[in-house]
């Protein structure tokens, strides 16, 4: 018997000396899985509520724009509706980007991870600042009397949004390309089978 097998057997025998009581174990598992299900549901409900609230807020803003007689307000409410929807989309795209980055990150070194995290932190901070600045401009444009200026300002805030709408999808695409390259590299490094080795030796 090999050493690892005897070690395994020894561990199994040791475990058999003090096994968990079956009834308690069963009850304990039921409690754990009940709690886990609750946590999963809680996460889904919170996520769903956020989606719903943002969607409703955008729709409400759109409705406000339709129902008002004031041209400036109509323009601004329309812009606010788009503003909410687009930033929500950016948040969603960022989620996909981070998910992909986490997979790629697993295969990279410490320095690269650090670099990626710093970059992500920087972009997130910039995004929050841009969102706050754009929201404040939009808020101020509600109090303007000149509808042309209001339209100009409302359109102006979307320029920064567009940057992030490009950044995250392209970032995800480049990460996916990196992942594909890693995969190809791995495929090339797969050791030859014994048959192939024999053939090459025969030559």
């Amino acid at each position: 018997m090999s050493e690892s097998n005897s070690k395994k057997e020894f561990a199994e025998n040791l475990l058999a000396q003090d096994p968990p009581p079956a009834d308690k174990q069963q009850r304990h598992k039921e409690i754990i899985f009940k709690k886990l299900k609750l946590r999963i549901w809680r996460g889904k409900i919170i996520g769903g509520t956020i989606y719903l609230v943002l969607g409703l807020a955008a729709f409400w803003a759109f409705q406000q724009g339709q129902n008002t007689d004031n041209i400036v307000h109509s323009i601004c409410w329309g812009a606010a509706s788009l503003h909410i929807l687009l930033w929500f989309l950016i948040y969603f795209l960022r989620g996909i980007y981070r998910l992909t980055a986490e997979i790629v990150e697993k295969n990279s070194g410490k320095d690269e991870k650090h670099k990626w995290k710093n970059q992500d932190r920087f972009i997130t901070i910039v995004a929050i600042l841009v969102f706050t600045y754009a929201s404040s401009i939009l808020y101020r444009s509600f109090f303007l009397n000149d509808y042309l200026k209001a339209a100009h300002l409302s359109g102006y805030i979307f320029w920064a949004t567009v940057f992030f709408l490009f950044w995250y999808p392209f970032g995800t695409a480049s990460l996916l390309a990196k992942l594909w390259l890693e995969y190809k590299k791995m495929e090339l490094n797969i050791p030859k089978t014994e048959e192939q080795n024999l053939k090459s030796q025969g030559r």
Partner: protein
Amino acid sequence: MEQDKLSNAILVLSCQKRDEPAFRELVNRWEPRLYYYLRRLVENENDVWDILQETWLAVFQNIRKLQDPLKFPTWLYRISHNKAVNLLRKENKYVQITEEQMADYCQNNNTVLAVKEQTELVHKLLGKLKLAHREVLTLYFLEGFSIREIAQIIGISEGTAKSRLYYAKHKLHEALKGANYV
């Protein structure tokens, strides 16, 4: 052994994708081991079940952060060690042992263990050892963890883990001598 590690890693990867059946399988696979380990650290059985529950909830919450699925056993034991130590500290039962104290405690150099078949006796004698010794020996016997892994789980340096395991083996050997086995 390698197959076990691989299937474990696959389970961990599935759990990272929030796969509930995989998590159930992981619990079924590791719970008896964790239970045995925690029973060596904590006297009260109800406390053991509480720690186990906290451990699994923490595992579920943080498993996505685990970078290397192959390191799951070390990570899992580290979590349950921390939970157990928190409880023992609350009850003032956890005392950090320094290497000097350990050296005073054991002076003999004979550390040969030839008792692998006598698990029942080893199990009984483990209960008579100090908590720190009991813990390293349980990790060593149960999972075959290396010095580095034991150090990571307990949160001590590799040197300390090495000497602690050495003294623990020695104390077990002495206890076995006392039981007229060696």
